[in-house]
């Protein structure tokens, strides 16, 4: 899956979770950039991303993840082995 494709689907997930149509995220986006992205909604978000891409974040990844770009890296790695 291309980075672009991942972002198209990821933006939909963000819009669903935050219930706002005007959200667009990029590599450098962090929780501080989006209104209402607190530690609690973060849990819902991670769950929704897992579902969308049929992947599972392991704990080491979750703990280290710094921005949306790293999340996308993980998604691409996680889906790469699938045809």
């Amino acid at each position, binding site marked *: 899956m291309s980075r672009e494709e991942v972002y198209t689907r990821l933006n939909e*997930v963000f819009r*669903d979770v935050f219930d706002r149509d005007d959200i667009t995220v990029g590599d450098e986006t962090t929780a501080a950039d989006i209104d209402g992205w607190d530690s*609690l909604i973060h*849990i819902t978000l991670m*769950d929704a991303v897992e579902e969308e891409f049929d992947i599972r974040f392991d*704990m080491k990844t979750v703990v280290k993840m710094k921005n949306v770009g790293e999340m996308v890296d993980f998604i691409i790695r996680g889906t790469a082995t699938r045809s």
Partner: protein
Amino acid sequence: MQELQYPFDSRYIIKKKKSIKRQLLEQGSGFIDKRIAVLGGSTTHDIIMILELFLLDQGIRPQFYESEYARYWEDVMFDNPELVEFKPDIIYIHTSNRNIRQYPTLSMSADETEELLKADYDHYLKMWGKIESSYKCPVIQNNFEYPFYRLLGNADATDIHGRVNYINRLNSRFAEYAGKHKDFFIQDINYLSACYGLDKWSDPLYWHMYKYALSMEAIPTLAFSVSNMIKSIYGKNKKALALDLDNTLWGGIVGDDGVDGIEIGPETSMGQVYSEFQEYLKMQKDIGVILNVCSKNEEENAIAGLNHPDGILKPDDFIEIKANWDPKSKNLADMAGELNLLPESFVFVDDNPAEREIVRSQLNVVSPEIGSVEDYIRIIDHSGFFEVTNLSSDDAKRNEMYKENAKRAKLEASFDNYGDYLTSLEMKGTIKPFEPVYMERIAQLSNKSKQFNLTTKRYTRAEIEETAASDEYIDIYGKLQDKFGDNGVVSVVIGHKNGDVLDLDLWIMSCRVLKRDMEFAMMDELVHRAREAGIKIIHGYYYPTAKNKMVKDFYGLMGFELINEDSDGNRTWEFKIKDDYKDKNQYIAVNSDQ
């Protein structure tokens, strides 16, 4: 909302919770408001958000108090002012096996494990006792799910040092406590997590990262179950089943295949699975669910099918049998009218998705996606329509009562004069101040009555007991009996004294005794007791809801004068007690056994 009916898509609910909430608030009306304190042994944020959705869908608009992470015990024991101020209507204590402080170690003696158990149990016991004395509100408490690993393997269940064994013992203590305490309910997450699959129920990642005792995906299952308990406590259970026949209660089509051709009974696998379903339905009668038939069939064929020698359900098990070619939505609405129930009190069960959809869209009736015949029981059961919290002896007798009503209707039709009919019923009433044996039923009635209810004020059992004990109130219940049977407690009136004025807080009556003069008998008794207490004026209040229009002019009928009506339709009525008050009831012999 269909998306919130079992079996639901948890991921969808989690992801869309914000927009679902918006829709529920936009579409719903006539909510009852409840303050719910959630005291958690883990992070409860998402539990609350999802519980809110299920409650809104059940007609309850919650306001929440959430304890700080794992402060469930401290909040109660040290009277957290916020919690005290919040005045919860209900307290939900969500703990899990992560909150068990110490498990037995292998070196412990049997006595030592018992001591440990006692200490763990006492921790909860103290908290429950404190809630009972300080908050006097219903409590829902989780029991414990099994641990996600077993040091002793299978022996973990049998060896006194095993965690599984320990949790079983603790859970049985919890159950024992619940059995002895009113208004205390165990949410059986031990069963829920087993149904769900223990490995999926909790996720160590969620615990260590976020302090969630459940995995995200299991939260809707937990929240749905709590919402069912809460709606049951507040009298919002469904009351009746409307059942299709062909391919729902038996295999095949009785009109085409003939009675001998339908599948029911021990001869075939298909026959057996339908028998098990019929057996399940028959048991619903014991918890007070009314069974009815709603089928597109010739009535003659329907009855013949129900009289199949191997059938478990017989025509006599049903209160209403509507078998004709009218739309099922019409039949269901008629049925509701005849039974004095609201259509939304029904659950419609039909194997045909098109029929389900029509009934759902025409009436505000739930109709579960019941799947294939082998799924019927699980889906109806897990839907929690009839969740039992307070089982009164009335529930077990309810089908009988409806049967008696059918006989009364027949008798009524045989009289030209309604008064003659009432006389022929030989009615006897008992109208007295609240008595201990009836407190449960009185509270239940205050929560269930929707139509004949002037103020729709709801009472818990504890509040009813307080009212009864206080001198500030005049409180009476009415019980009605006739030659066909005992209707039990059917009416309640509560008024509080204000000098020589009595303000009526509550006047309710069960619709099953409409037009029997019981309201007049209650009025007479109220006037007598008020006069004895030195009351000169009675004020009655009517607050309109979507469902209580039938009593809009009730006080007028009782001889009150309308003294005020505001723009919302709230009415205030006044009744001056005169010395020459004449009893209004002519047909019921009241308190004649004394």
